[in-house]
């Protein structure tokens, strides 16, 4: 790891000023559970770390007003156990407590979570990693070097949104739940403040997989806003993994339902574990409107959610698994009382 300077500003303005002064080799750090990890792997090499975790007032969780508001520095463990969320928006709480471990959730912030790096094995087992089984090209790590996952051991790779340059999965669970629930991200930066729908935060890899987020240099996420909806109560985050706990998703589905009897008035559906970004399934949502929800109609919606999926050598199972995960999630959510 290359040496770096370390500062801990107390306000957003101070943090932005510090970033401006430090220049392009600067990076913000919050919990550090993603950034410090990839620094240890020598994938990211900042020369200046600006620790935003001591900024005051950026960790508030507000559920009492007309929208839900999560300060970017709220810890995952705090948001996961919020009583209002557990009751009225289980999809949000579940996406957090089913992620990582309690130790990591105590460190990680809900803002940093949005910008965590992929777990693609070829991305991680690269430069300077003494425990790697070798060095692999990776366009995300070294633009233009190639992608060893394509045609390689691709069991974990994406089946939606991949390009000829990159098939890495977008790893987070919380971003998938937020995508389903139409969240907005509040930003502050050198050129002022703005708000961005979460759907616009994530890029598809295309031929520039090293560019992942639509943030300007020096921009800080200050808060995440989720509009309130009666569909929140009938919601779930269903996560399928290689083991029952403490693993990233092979496939996951965030769903929320607004029901009229056993008919769907409106559905929110997003997928994780299968796409190169959090994947909103609009086609599935539209199919469900006005439908009676049965295991059959749920599976039809699940198949629609995976429309356009392309598998590699070893990840063909994700197409069917993804569809069934959506179907099961819909049935679980429908069981919940509004």
């Amino acid at each position, binding site marked *: 790891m290359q040496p770096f*300077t370390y500062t801990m500003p107390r306000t957003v303005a101070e943090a932005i000023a510090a970033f401006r002064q430090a220049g392009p080799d600067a990076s913000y750090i919050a919990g550090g559970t993603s950034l410090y990890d990839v620094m240890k792997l020598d994938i990211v090499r900042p020369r200046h770390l600006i620790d935003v975790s001591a900024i005051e007032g950026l960790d508030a969780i507000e559920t009492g007003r007309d929208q839900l508001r999560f300060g970017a520095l709220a810890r995952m463990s705090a948001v996961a156990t919020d009583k209002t969320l557990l009751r009225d928006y289980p999809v949000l709480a579940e996406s957090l407590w089913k992620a990582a*471990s*309690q130790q*990591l959730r*105590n*460190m990680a912030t809900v803002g940093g979570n949005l910008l965590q790096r992929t777990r693609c094995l070829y991305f991680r087992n690269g430069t300077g990693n003494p425990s790697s089984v070798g060095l692999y090209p990776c366009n995300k790590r070294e633009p233009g070097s190639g992608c060893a996952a394509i045609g390689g051991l691709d069991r974990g790779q994406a089946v939606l949104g991949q390009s000829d340059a990159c098939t890495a999965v977008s790893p987070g669970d919380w971003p998938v739940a937020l995508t389903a629930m139409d969240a907005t991200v509040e930003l502050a930066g050198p050129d002022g403040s703005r708000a961005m729908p979460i759907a616009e935060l994530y890029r598809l890899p295309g031929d520039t997989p090293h560019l992942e987020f639509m943030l300007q240099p020096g921009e800080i996420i200050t808060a995440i806003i989720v509009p309130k909806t009666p569909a929140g109560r009938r919601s779930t985050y269903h996560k399928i993994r290689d083991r029952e*706990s403490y693993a990233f998703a092979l496939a996951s589905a965030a769903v929320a339902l607004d029901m009229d009897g056993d008919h769907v008035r409106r559905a929110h559906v997003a997928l994780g574990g299968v796409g190169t970004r959090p994947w909103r399934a609009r086609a599935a949502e539209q199919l469900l409107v006005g439908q009676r929800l049965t295991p059959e109609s749920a599976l039809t919606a699940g198949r629609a959610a995976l429309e356009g999926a392309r598998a590699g050598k070893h990840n063909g199972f994700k197409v069917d698994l993804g569809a069934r995960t959506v179907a099961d999630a819909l049935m679980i959510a429908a069981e919940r009382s509004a």
Partner: protein
Amino acid sequence: MTNYADDEDQAAKVDARQNVSRRSALKGGAALAVLPLTFEGPAEAQPTAPMVAGVAVEPAHSVLLSTSVNGKVVEFRVDARSSLLDFLRERLALTGAKKGCDHGQCGACTVHLDGRRVASCLTLAAKAQGREVITIEGLSDGEGLHPMQQAFIDHDALQCGYCTPGQIMAAVALVNEGNATSKERIREYMSGNICRCGAYVGIVAAIEDAASKMRRA
């Protein structure tokens, strides 16, 4: 205020050339790691004393850290790259917290930071500034064992013991969080601690047992 031996000033005076060679020696460690793990030299030559002298770095790349560890306030100048785990083990010689993966994946390095369990390997030491760290060494307040430590013995909740300090620190926090309500919930909230020996059945039993004692205490 107690100060653990700190020869940082001394270390800072190490001349630049030696500094560089030490660093490249560390980098060379990556290549060495793939060699077979045999030690060629005489056994006496193996370092036994804990290394408390920190590798010298430019002042700009270090931080002055003042933190409370197991109830003692310590003040050190540390390399900004240092993890809390390396700080505890290499500078304070508190080797209870273990390095299993160094990437947040195994839980062997679990300690409490301001009462909450964290993976010390993914926590920058600098983040402990002004906060309270409790390690396995500081868990019991005197001669006696903490109920969780005793329960791990009573229920045979270990084999090699490498994961045990992390398991115990996680388990104590789990009980304090109110998560020891069922076997299922204990398993879910202990899933961040991997045991390669597979002592999981004993670990869950120990936590259930200790939880009832901790609640009574």
